[in-house]
Each structure stands twice: as structure tokens, then as C-alpha cells.
């Protein structure tokens, strides 16, 4: 807990809150611009709004995860503080504190985005409103893949001082994740941001004959959720050990 507070103390004046608000705003503006085309009081407005989420989030939230992960690690690298910190903290503690810090920022951003979506849906008077529980479930399904990306990027960002590598990795993951949304589920399972699509209860289908995009709901895929948790846990475990071995 103390270690977590220290991570936030190190990020003072780094305007991370601006990054969080900006990201949530960006997602909302993007999704709102397409919702603007949906009629007021539409019966599947919320569903079609949420169906955009995987695409928007796999671009924006994945990169957001890479940015905050990289930022948290860059702070220590730039200050050349690791050799001092690791005399006072276990590598695993430092690693975990940074992860929890990223998770906190991700949760806040996703909460803002979800809240914004709920407000937008209410404003447009969509009749297919979701309950608080359903919105919360949606939020958790966005946090999961985002946090997994953050964990992967952190592994690289802590190990190497030059943040270009970690950000390029974040971009590659984002690109791969976005593309994977157009592929069968087996491909989506391979990339962390593919889970934005897998865990979404709203799917889109495009009818070639009528050229109409429609959205439909599917039941929650628990198997994929468990798989994501397993992948995330493995990444964290391996990279934590990898970091502990790093010599300064």
C-alpha cells in the first residue's frame, strides 16, 4: 500500500490525470460521433453504441495502457532511481506497485468512459438501457484486456531504459488487436486486445445482401474470460521474475 502511494507520489506533476480524462474523452467523442447518427429514442441505440466499443477501445485503450505503463517506468529510469529504490524495496514489490498504479488509472479511465456512455444513452433516450450491473460488467470487460496490455508493456518498459521499444510494442499490440477483431475467435485469443471483442456481449454482423450492419447480443463467454486471466497472470509472473534478475 505504501509502495502504491509512492508510485503516485512519483507521478506528481506528470499530468497523468490529464491523460486519463483525455483518453476517456477521446473514446466518448469518437463513439458519440457515430451515435449522433442513431435516431433519438432508438430501440437498439445502446447496443449499437456498445458494439463500437471493441474497435475504439482496442485502438485507444490499448495505446493508453502502453502510455501509462511506459510513463510509470520512465519516471524511475529518467531519475536513475532504480539503484537506490532497489536497496530499499524488493524488485517484486516495486513491480507490483507499478502494476496496481496502472490498474488504478485504467479503472478510473474506463469508469469515466462507461459513465459517459451511460449518460449518452440516457440523453439519447435509447429504450434498450442497460442496468448498472450490466454497465459494470461492460467496464470490467474493458479493464481486463487493457490491464493485460499494461502488464506486457511494463515488462519491457522496466527492463529497458529506452521507452521506444515499449511504445512500439504497445502500438504493435494495438494494431494486431484491432485487426484480430475481424478474424475468427481463435486468432483473437492470441492477442490481449482481441479480448475486447471476445468479452463483448454485443457483436456486429454485416449483411452482404442488404448492406446493413446490425448488432446482436451473445451470452458472456466465461471461457475466454478465464483464459485472459490466465494469460495476464502468466505475463505478470514471468516478467516479475525477469525484472528481479535484472542487474543494475
Amino acid at each position, binding site marked *: 500500500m505504501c509502495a502504491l502511494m509512492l508510485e503516485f507520489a512519483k507521478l506528481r506533476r506528470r499530468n497523468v490525470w490529464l*491523460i486519463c480524462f483525455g483518453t476517456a474523452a477521446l473514446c466518448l*467523442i469518437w463513439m458519440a460521433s457515430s451515435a449522433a447518427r442513431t435516431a433519438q429514442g432508438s430501440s437498439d441505440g445502446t447496443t449499437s453504441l456498445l458494439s463500437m466499443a471493441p474497435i475504439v477501445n482496442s485502438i485507444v485503450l490499448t495505446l*493508453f495502457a502502453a502510455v501509462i505503463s511506459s510513463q510509470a517506468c520512465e519516471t524511475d529510469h*529518467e531519475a536513475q532511481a532504480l539503484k537506490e529504490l532497489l536497496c530499499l524495496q524488493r524488485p517484486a514489490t516495486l513491480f507490483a506497485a507499478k502494476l496496481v498504479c496502472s490498474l488504478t488509472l485504467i479503472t478510473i479511465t474506463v469508469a469515466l468512459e462507461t459513465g459517459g456512455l451511460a449518460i449518452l444513452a440516457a440523453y439519447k433516450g435509447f429504450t434498450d438501457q442497460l442496468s448498472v450491473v450490466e454497465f459494470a460488467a461492460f467496464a470490467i470487460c474493458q479493464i481486463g484486456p487493457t490491464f493485460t496490455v499494461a502488464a506486457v508493456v511494463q515488462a519491457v518498459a522496466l527492463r529497458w531504459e529506452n521507452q521506444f521499444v515499449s*511504445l512500439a510494442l504497445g502500438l504493435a499490440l494495438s494494431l494486431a488487436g484491432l485487426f484480430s477483431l475481424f*478474424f475468427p475467435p481463435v486468432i483473437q485469443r492470441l492477442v490481449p486486445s482481441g479480448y475486447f471483442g471476445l468479452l463483448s456481449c454485443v457483436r456486429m454482423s454485416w449483411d452482404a445482401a442488404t448492406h446493413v450492419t446490425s448488432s446482436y447480443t451473445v451470452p458472456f463467454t466465461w471461457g475466454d474470460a478465464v483464459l485472459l486471466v490466465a494469460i495476464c497472470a502468466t505475463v505478470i509472473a514471468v516478467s516479475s521474475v525477469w525484472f528481479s534478475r535484472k542487474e543494475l
Partner: protein
Amino acid sequence: MMMQALCAEVDKLRRAPIWIAYVVLPFIAAAIGTFNYQQNLDLLMLGWENLWTQHTLFEFYFFLPALVGAGCSWLMGLEHAGSNWNQLLTSPVALWRIVVAKLVVGTGMLGVALAATGALFVVCGKMVGLVGFPSCDYVVYLLLSWVGGVAMVAVQLLVSLVVRSFAAPVGIALAGSVAGLLLSSKGWGLWWPWALMSLASNANGGGTLAPAELVRFVGVVALFSIAASTICALMMSHAAATSE
């Protein structure tokens, strides 16, 4: 003097071969794009146009700008590290030359990505059995994209100078691109530096710039590039002057 500044930047590049990312990104986009094209042959029409869209849509609208952002962060990074301002002030090379050198290198790296995109486009097209070769239009698209990209490189260099972190400018690049997407749909794209590259590239299959727009296009590129570079140089000299 100019060559000196340029050589210094290229030297840094040699030691940290980040340009590799500028080849890998188009490669990923091409690989997945081609695969996607193959999978959806029943939905899409056959042809070079659709393959181009598959390859470049996401790359040019979001990821290449973000990669350019990362590259510019890296280029500016050495000026932030260890407060090299005293060194800058005593260096015989004028600050604006340093900015121009960075601009040239940044544009060069973008050129690598665009060239890779073009090459991979032709190779993948032949691999999936497309007949003949793509028309010269595509070369025009790439060249215009490169010109448009110069404005983006210049603006990102300024962003990286102002924002001291490495990662944040990459986020700003993405935000700029998304905003560019939204602005383009309203017809304002030609005034937004992040949208210029994607507008010229025909990545969404909607056609590239009309000949009438070319003058305005080049003008806007020049405006943003010169303005951003000048502000960069002024800020650097101010920082150098105010530090001890």
C-alpha cells in the same frame, strides 16, 4: 554546418536502430491486411484498390502517426536527458539547424515506412494472384502522404519538446489522428496536421486529393512545418539561455 547537424542525428540513429519499427509496422499491417483480404473475398471486390484499403486503412489513420510520435519523442529525447542545454548553447551549430536535422531524420524514417508499405503492397498483391501491377496512382498516393507527413513530424517534434515524457506525445499523436478522422468526415481535414497524411493516401478508398486541393495541401504542410519548427528552435534557444 547543416551536414554536421544531420550527421550527428544519423549517428544517434545508427546506435539505436529504431527505424526497424518503421518497417515492422507496415509488415504487420500488410500481413494481416492481406490475410483479411483473402478471408473476405466474397464480401470485397477483387482488386488492388481493396487490397490497398486493407493494408493502409488502420495503419495510416492511427498507427503510423502514433509511431511517428514515438520516433519524434526519441529524437527529442536526447535534448531532455541530462539537460544538454549548455552543450547546445556552446555548440557551433545554430539551433534551427538542429531542428531541421531532426525534421529531416524524422521525415526520412517516415519515408522508410511508406516505402515499405509500397513494396509490401506490390509483393502481397502478387502473392494473392492479382493481375498486373498497381497503377502509378499509388506512387502518387505515397509521395503525397510523405509530403503531408512532414507537417505531422514537425508538429510532433514540437509536442515532444513541450511535453517532457516519452509516452505522452504518442498518445497525443493518436488523439490528433482520431480528431483528424472526425474532422475529415466534416470536411475540415485539410486544416489539421495529423489528417494530412491519411487524406493524401486514399487509405479509405475515397480517393486522394483533387488537383484543385493540391495547392492548399502543400501550403498547409508548409505552414505547419515552418511554424512548428520555428517555435521549436525558439523554445530551445530560450531554454538554453535561461539555464546556467
